[in-house]
């Protein structure tokens, strides 16, 4: 018997590179305002953070992707389906978690998830079984049987997340998924999102203002400002600093080591998180820092290759775009 080539089990290379979302020059005009001013982007499979200041057009873009609002101009595809003409097909393959505190009154948590499942096409009993399974995955216990009006904001977030994934969508669009969650729940939710991508192969588009969330789980970043894409890149590229640099933290007073390095012509900066950033073309920069610590009797707590702060990148990008448009 001939062996079956392993490539037969893998998606074609072209498919792997096929963008999940591809938009070309999308324009959305409201009466007196242009919400999207020629958005063009290709979003690859993975976890993509959609960032932007308030009013940048993120919510409009998401609603347009779901086929809930019509766009004025442009073309695009989502999961291979043409934008604007296959709204139902797209919505059956997408799980959406809205930012708004929205819920279906009068129902218990598990009923809301079951209802969402049935609206997405799951049969009634199967929808209930699947809802319980997903609520277990989301860490909802007996409170699932309580009326949703009695839930805290965090619990409602969990229910919305469960409702978004109950029909096993290929693409998740999450709008501010961690808002209202306590730190522990926030971490759990981010872990779940990462797990969905890693183990279930889901792609995720996260619209958020919480940059550490993006830093924690995203592979790609898109920044919108004034209805335009002002930056799209992988997080790895954005993290990369323009010149070799090291960030370190010390125990106690950092002044002696900072002064010592400055005296030796190193570019030293103190960051808001109290870490010290040293930029230099020196090939053995880490050794230099260890040596300076020894000479100044400073205890180094941590030492890592420096990364660009996403916050800096975001602020800089938005500032530049606003400056350019004005």
């Amino acid at each position, binding site marked *: 018997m001939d062996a079956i080539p392993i490539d037969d089990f893998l998606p074609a290379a072209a498919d792997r590179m096929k963008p999940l979302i591809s938009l070309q020059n999308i324009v959305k005009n409201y009466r007196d305002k242009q919400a999207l001013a020629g958005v063009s982007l290709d979003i690859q499979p993975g976890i993509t953070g959609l960032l932007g200041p308030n009013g940048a057009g993120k919510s409009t873009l998401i609603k347009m992707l779901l086929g809930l609002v019509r766009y004025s101009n442009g073309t695009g595809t989502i999961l291979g389906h043409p934008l604007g003409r296959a709204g139902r097909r797209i919505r059956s393959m997408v799980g959406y978690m809205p930012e708004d505190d929205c819920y279906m009154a009068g129902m218990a948590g598990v009923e809301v998830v079951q209802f969402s499942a049935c*609206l997405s096409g799951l049969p009634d009993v*199967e929808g209930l079984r699947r809802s319980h399974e997903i609520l277990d995955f989301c860490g909802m216990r007996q409170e699932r049987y309580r009326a949703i009006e009695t839930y805290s904001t965090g619990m409602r977030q969990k229910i919305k997340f469960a409702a978004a994934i109950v029909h096993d969508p290929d693409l998740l669009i999450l709008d501010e998924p961690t808002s209202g969650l306590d730190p522990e729940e926030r971490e759990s939710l981010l872990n779940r999102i990462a797990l969905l991508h890693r183990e279930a192969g889901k792609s995720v588009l996260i619209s958020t203002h919480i940059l550490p969330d993006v830093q924690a789980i995203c592979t790609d970043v898109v920044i919108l400002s004034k209805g335009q894409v002002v930056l799209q890149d992988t997080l790895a590229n954005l993290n990369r600093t323009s010149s070799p640099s090291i960030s370190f933290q010390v125990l106690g007073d950092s002044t002696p080591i900072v002064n010592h390095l400055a005296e030796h012509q190193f570019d030293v900066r103190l960051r808001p998180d109290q870490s010290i950033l040293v930029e230099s073309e020196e090939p053995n920069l880490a050794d230099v820092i260890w040596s300076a610590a020894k000479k100044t009797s400073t205890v180094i707590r941590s030492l890592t290759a420096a990364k660009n702060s996403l916050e800096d990148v975001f602020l800089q990008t938005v500032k530049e775009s606003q400056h350019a448009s004005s």
Partner: protein
Amino acid sequence: MPVHDVGYRGWDGKKTSPLTRWKIITYTGIRLALRSRWVARLLFLAWLPVMYWGVGFFFIENSINQDSGISVAETVVAAASEATMGADISADLGLGGSRKKIASIIRRQYKMVPNVDVIASALESGNEVATRSVVWGWLLMTFFRYPQGTLILFLVGSIAPALVSQDIRTRAFLLYFSRPIGRLEYVLGKLLVPVAFILMVSLVPAIALYFFAIMMSPDISVIWSTWDIPLRIVAASVVLVVPVASIAVMLSSLTQESRFANFAWFAVWAMGHGAWIAILFSVAVGKGMNPFDPIVTNDPVSQRWSWLSLYNNLGDVQSWVFGFEDFSQIYVSAIVLAGITIFSLVVLYYRVSAPMRV
């Protein structure tokens, strides 16, 4: 972590047809409404008149089966009048009295009862089959118009106001419309909630009454002489549910507060009917008569303004459906109901689409 937590697993089962998603909305709406004790009580209350009308049908058919020596038509009218009016007509009729005499008595003594002239005429005709058809139709028409017409007002008033207003208040629209359903399906699903409840207390009991009457009748051939009655029941139910559900759900879509929608619902009925009653009183005062005397209610001024009352409009069109009025007599009511329904549906669709236009 629960012991049965299996983590995340994919789902690749067979999905239901996209064309039937509105059923989920309707089914869920009905289930939620039935959780209210008031709705359950009203449903129970709305079925009580069925027993009363059932007794009416029983007397009619029981009299037919008895060899009492009087004509079927006479016993039918006697029993129907007794069942629906609560009056003992037998003394007025007298056993073996002539049909013309009985018809005359009915016309005189029961002149306040709508369409009593039609029944009296049927009685005079002496045609057993035609009389049965007329009386059955008349009983069912009064069943639709009086007890159910009033109870439905309260039943719908306790169900419909929250249907869309609650979704607006809790911003549940995004949860609906991010699913593979459209706005028309949402509107249809919501409309069918009050429709289902109205049918539960109008169509279903009316059909049950019809079959009860068939069972009480002397032989099964009665079906052939009354075959049109189930169709008339369905048509009367459609006349009732379409405008009523449209208005109720439209009012619900106008506000975030279901209590406002509830108030508006009762106000629409009370104000229209109240205005017509006021006109009746003014006519009655001018004539020095009882405002509900047929001479007053049939006065051209009263008739001209009858369309102000939704209740009258529904009753008039149902009278036509059961064959007691000509279309020329009720066309204004039909136009008013059609206009209100179209207006309500357009407003409802516009309101449901509004949150997506931001």
